[in-house]
């Protein structure tokens, strides 16, 4: 069953065509990675799939109608710096319609999962970049969504925190979540089941990391070969 879909998606901003007939179909329980340089269209693609942007042509799933089944973590830290970890979690949980008891139970479980239990009283603005990304992930998981869209979750995060974050992603993958992750880091998407190369709004190639790597030593080398 296809959980995440982009079917001939076109999105323009004025004269710029940010997405040009992009196709991808992520089956249930899979971990897919979209990789490309800056301004390749990764964020726009995820926003379209999340229903935050209207597509000019084509079709997306889950889109706006399926937002209840979606956990979305946007690029950078965009929670409330002047609220504590616990207050941020409670706020987002209540917006998802969870009762205070449910929020409390989920928060305990998810903060422990993300290793943030001992920082629950810290102001979110005082957390390290890696912890802020984990908090963003926790907030996007509060309503137990089966589908996760993660937009460059480790950009600007130190190497150790990146590894910790990827451990969490892999645990979610093993638990059955369907995940589409955008990244500018080629070494990261090696861990995905399936990789999509995006270049100037177009799908350059798609396949398993082994397929795409081919004779090259890394995905990055293969990508550079294609774009040179």
């Amino acid at each position, binding site marked *: 069953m296809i959980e995440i879909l982009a079917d001939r998606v076109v999105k323009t901003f004025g004269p710029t065509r940010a997405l040009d007939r992009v196709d991808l179909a992520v089956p249930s329980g899979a971990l897919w990675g979209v990789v490309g*340089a800056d301004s390749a269209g990764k964020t726009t693609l995820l926003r379209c799939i*999340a229903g935050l*942007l209207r597509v000019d042509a084509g079709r997306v799933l889950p889109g*706006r109608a399926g937002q209840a089944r979606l956990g979305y973590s946007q690029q950078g830290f965009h929670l409330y710096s002047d609220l504590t970890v616990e207050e941020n979690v409670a706020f987002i949980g209540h*917006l998802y319609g969870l009762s205070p008891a449910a929020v409390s139970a989920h928060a305990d479980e998810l903060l422990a999962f993300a290793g943030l239990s001992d920082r629950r009283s810290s102001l979110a603005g005082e957390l390290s970049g890696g912890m802020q990304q984990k908090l963003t992930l926790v907030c996007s998981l509060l309503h137990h969504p089966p589908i996760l869209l993660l937009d460059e979750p480790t950009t600007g995060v130190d190497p150790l925190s990146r590894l910790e974050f990827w451990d969490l992603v892999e645990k979610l993958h093993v638990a059955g979540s369907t995940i589409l992750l955008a990244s500018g880091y*080629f070494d990261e998407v090696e861990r995905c089941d399936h990789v999509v190369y995006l270049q100037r709004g177009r799908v350059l190639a798609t396949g398993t990391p082994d397929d795409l790597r081919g004779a090259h*030593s890394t995905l990055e080398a293969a990508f550079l070969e294609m774009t040179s």
Partner: protein
Amino acid sequence: MVALTILPDLWPMGPLALVTPRTVADRRQVAIAEPPTTDASAVLAPVVAHVRRPGWLRLRSLVRKEFIEIRRDRRTLALIVAVPIFLLVIFGYAAQFEVHHIATELVGNDSLPLRTALAEHGAFAVENGVAPNVAAAENDIRDGHVAAAVVVNREGRPTRVLIDGSNLLVAMTAERKLAALQQGSATPTPHVTVLYNPSLRSTIFMVPGLIGIIMTQVALVLTALGVVRERERGTIEQLMITPVTKLELMIGKTIPYLLIALCDLCVVLLVSWQIFGVPVRGSVLLLFGEAFLFLTATLGMGLLISTLARTQLQAMQMSVFVQLPQMLLSGIIFPLAAMPWSVRWLGYLLPLTYFASVARGVMLKGVGLSGLWPQTVALAVLGLVYVGLAVVRFRKTLD
């Protein structure tokens, strides 16, 4: 080899990425589009030249950069051009200390010579009807139908004048003009009674209007900034992915400022009463009810600004752009009746115009709802219009 250490920063690669000579060469081509070179001095030479630029060149760069930013920020540029022109026009027309056409009625008896004398004097606009007695005239002044009433005896001579003291400029002009009218006349000077503010204290005149300005500050500026701050920080995207509706989001963003503004009203009323001796002669409940309508309309304006501004700076500039006319055109300082229609119509679009009238009516004159329904209806209509426009513009998607 120096070039190899610099170039990885030009490419969006993570610290875990494996850097190979082949990829570095590729990166160089993409990032700087120049033929490969291993000569470190060639790479560093332009940098050294920049460091040695004289101070005035750096200053020129700073000034030029500011102008480029201003030029590209269309909204700010529009405000920079529009605000001085707008303020000049508003001040030029609205700041009229000399009041004309003071609504006046005769009491007891009609007198054509007196009507003619008052009308010819220019400051008074005499109503057609005649109030039967002083009590009826006082009611008309209380409800704001007229600002002055002249009691006329059977011989057609003025014996007493009642003046609405709640509007300082009107009262002072009426007193002065009547004294001028009386000069050279053989008839005895009529007794002048200034109602609601007998000593013509400017504090009593200003405080009800200032209450409106203080609440505007909270409702308009904080609401506009609150929403724009969400957009600037990027948190609004996180909110939009949740099931929260745009109506819930708007109401949720406005209720705190509504409550804060109502708390401000309590504090300001207490301070006005205790320190300045400005009473609330009418119903406090009615004042709060009217304040609720006024704040709804003002919050709507704040939300509307938040849909137009991209940054907090723009929101602040737009708020000032709206606030200044509110002070000048709402009748708080200069009576609307003294302004030409070319700017007066703007005053009728502002919630503060009606609330200032309500606040003076309730606080100084003790007017009830029956005397304030036109202002109440106007505040409700403006609330619907401004909140409606804000809802329409407040789109849920980022498009």
